[in-house]
């Protein structure tokens, strides 16, 4: 069923309200619904097959006229997808397969009996209602308010949910100064990582007398482990368009660009659909809602360079150049895209804007901590039971995220650390699990809020190896323009490589700290300035692991290959399977005799370990 048929070109605020009222009263809007997650994660897990199965099953049961299938944006719990929610009683089904759909339709939708086998188990209990599941109950979905509830490819869904009302309010009843003021009062800080107050940024650009100004959305979400922007782009793209239009009005701009990374084809597709629809119905373009305000929006695709998430590099890239950062000042608010005043915010920040305008800045500021207002979206991943996307008030303790919402560690090992903030961030050890997730508290621990990627690691992760991983990342992605970043991170990586290979010396730790200080102080842009953070934070919280690698030549997690020892235990029955697969003939022993590994020859490939059927081989 298509509620787009109630849409028309919207000429003013009254018409927007009228369209919304019509939509809310429509038969289609009030019909019974089955929500199927069509977020990137669930699509990869096969949710489109589930949708097809629902279409045919509902048709078979002649329910297709009364029950509507909604393909929604990300519902959050990617790990247990594809997920389906039955609208009438809020039942949440996990890991649905196409063959389960018949049961859902016949048993639940027709006979009214919940399909128990598809419920999400919590402590051996089966909870059917989505709102009662710990994963959802402990969240506060504000920015993600529409994700999972509306179809992102239909502007009518967004309008029915109250969309574009904030834009209408700003255009019809506020001056640009008032709009900036509202954002300032809200205390909203940039969600891209640095946490700069959005209102302050906007007021700099607003004050500029230049006639040409630009508003840019940074959707180049490059931090590994972060996918909140992707989910907003895919699940509620109109909220970004609305936020940008409000921003454009506030600073006096009429052209915007969204810079989306090329790794997100679905996000690009859905955002383009949203932009086209907003244009078609008069919500962007010329003379928006009859107020004389013009705003055009265009997508620019990234081409695979992490550094382009840095604001000046992103601007340089839109201009058609190598995405190398430039020194600040001048800041973009003064001289940005094509040397004109430019405001650049990230996806989540823009998505907050309609919300704070609707609520009013003061009410928005009631959520969060003293210095950090509102909610923050985190992407939970790693060894956690329910990995996925969650939103909580800023200042929520890390423990609540990992245990109450994420369900705890997915393996039988203990929590070791959570890496937060990507390559610019740090690791939070177990003794700091109660740290409130806000900008200041995380900084104190040597981590950063960053864009909100949160990777949980259990005791099988080696923290020196994690530091090496991030150094390799920044080394790879360093643009090479400034020496401290290009050379400094390379030397740091050499040292950490050495330590991981068991060739480190105690003075290497000091050397690392010295280099880190230089790279931090002397690099041109944020990428370089924060690149040493993963090393510094692991040195701070897991120094003993570095020392073990250097002094004892031991990696307690058996991750660092050069330090692993493979040994064949007495239970070996001499079947010779390991001897046959060993590529370097390092295993000796007669048939039916206990075999032995020659450690000098062993290349630690692990083939013997995976081949042995008798658990006779161990590594440590």
């Amino acid at each position: 069923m298509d509620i787009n048929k109630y849409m028309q070109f919207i000429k003013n605020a009254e018409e927007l309200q009228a369209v919304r009222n019509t939509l809310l009263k429509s038969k289609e809007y009030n019909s019974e619904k089955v929500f199927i997650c069509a977020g990137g994660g669930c699509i990869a897990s096969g949710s489109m097959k589930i949708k097809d199965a629902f279409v045919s099953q509902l048709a078979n049961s002649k329910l297709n006229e009364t029950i509507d299938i909604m393909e929604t944006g990300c519902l959050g719990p990617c790990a247990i997808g594809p997920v389906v929610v039955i609208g009438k009683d809020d039942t949440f089904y996990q890991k649905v397969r196409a063959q389960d759909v018949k049961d859902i339709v016949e048993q639940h939708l027709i006979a009214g009996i919940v399909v128990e086998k598809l419920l999400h188990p919590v402590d051996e209990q089966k909870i059917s209602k989505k709102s009662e599941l710990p994963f959802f109950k402990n969240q506060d979905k504000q920015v993600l308010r529409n994700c999972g509830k509306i179809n992102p490819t239909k502007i009518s869904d967004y309008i029915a949910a109250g969309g574009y009302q904030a834009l209408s309010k700003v255009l019809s009843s506020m001056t640009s100064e008032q709009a900036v003021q509202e954002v300032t009062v809200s205390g909203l800080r940039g969600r891209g990582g640095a946490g700069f107050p959005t209102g302050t940024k906007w007021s700099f650009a607003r004050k500029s007398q230049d006639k040409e100004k630009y508003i840019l959305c940074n959707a180049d979400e490059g931090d590994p482990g972060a996918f909140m922007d992707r989910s907003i782009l895919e699940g509620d793209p109109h909220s970004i368009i609305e936020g940008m239009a409000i921003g454009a009005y506030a600073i006096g701009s009429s052209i915007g660009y969204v810079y989306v990374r090329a790794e997100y084809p679905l996000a690009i597709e859905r955002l383009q659909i949203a932009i086209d629809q907003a244009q078609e119905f008069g919500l962007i373009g010329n003379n928006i809602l009859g107020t004389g305000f013009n705003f055009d929006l265009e997508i620019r695709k990234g081409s695979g360079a992490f550094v382009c998430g840095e604001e000046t590099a992103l601007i340089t890239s839109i201009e058609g150049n190598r995405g190398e950062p430039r020194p600040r000042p001048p800041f973009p608010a003064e001289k940005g895209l094509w040397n004109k005043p430019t405001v650049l915010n990230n996806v989540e920040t823009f998505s907050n804007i309609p919300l704070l305008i609707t609520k009013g800045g003061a009410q928005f500021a009631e959520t969060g901590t003293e210095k950090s207002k509102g909610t923050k979206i985190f992407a939970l991943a790693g060894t956690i039971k329910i990995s996925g996307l969650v939103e909580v008030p800023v200042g929520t303790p890390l423990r609540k995220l990992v245990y109450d919402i994420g369900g705890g560690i997915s393996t039988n090992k203990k929590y070791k650390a959570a890496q937060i903030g990507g390559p610019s961030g740090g690791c939070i050890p177990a003794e700091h699990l109660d740290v409130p997730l806000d900008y200041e508290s995380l900084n104190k621990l040597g981590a950063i809020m960053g864009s909100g990627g949160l990777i949980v690691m259990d005791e099988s992760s080696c923290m020196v190896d994690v530091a090496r991983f991030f150094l390799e990342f920044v080394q790879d992605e360093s643009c090479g323009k400034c020496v401290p970043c290009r050379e400094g991170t390379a030397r740091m990586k050499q040292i950490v490589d050495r330590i991981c290979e068991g060739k480190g010396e105690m003075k290497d730790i000091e050397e690392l700290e010295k280099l880190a200080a230089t790279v931090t102080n002397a690099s041109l842009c944020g990428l370089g300035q924060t690149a040493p953070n993963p090393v510094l934070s692991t040195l701070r919280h897991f120094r003993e692991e570095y020392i073990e690698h250097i002094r004892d030549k031991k990696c307690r997690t058996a991750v660092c290959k050069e330090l692993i020892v493979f040994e064949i235990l007495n239970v070996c029955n001499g079947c010779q399977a390991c001897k046959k697969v060993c590529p370097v003939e390092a295993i000796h022993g007669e048939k039916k005799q206990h075999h032995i590994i020659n450690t000098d020859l062993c290349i630690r490939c692990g083939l013997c370990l995976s081949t042995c059927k008798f658990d006779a081989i161990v590594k440590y």
Partner: protein
Amino acid sequence: MAKVEKCSCGNDEEGLLDRLEEIIISFKDKPGALIPVLQATQSLFGYIPQEAILKISEILNEPLQKVYGVITFYSFFSLKPRGKFLIRVCLGTACYVQGANEILTALKQQLSIEIGETSPDKLFTLDVGRCFGACGLAPIIMVNDDVHQWVKPTDVKKIISSYKKQKEVKQEEEKNGY
């Protein structure tokens, strides 16, 4: 943005160059046109041939040196033809801590190629990526635009052969005139 369809034949670069010329001209007066034009070129040819670079430089009036500099800066542009299927192993944090390296090793062994190389049958190019934002499903690999989640090193063989089969089915269909 102009939609460029992939050439299904893969041989007629002459025809593609004419098509490219139209695209470049359509972008000519837009500010910052170089990167969208290169993206269109990459998706048209599957790589950026030298003739295309010359044409872009000439029509957009950008020095060759700059065009080349931009191409080599971004990882999505390739100066060498890529295979029909681009396999990218995610080496983002979530995938890395859950064993992405072993998947990469398995792929290298299975395809007998290194990162950045293309298999002799021109079917597969192996590359690595830095997070595709599907961390909830880690570890993942991407084959063109398809996501494969929770991949184990032992799954690699099956994944590769499924794409080989896809190619064969397509060839069969073409032969039968579908």
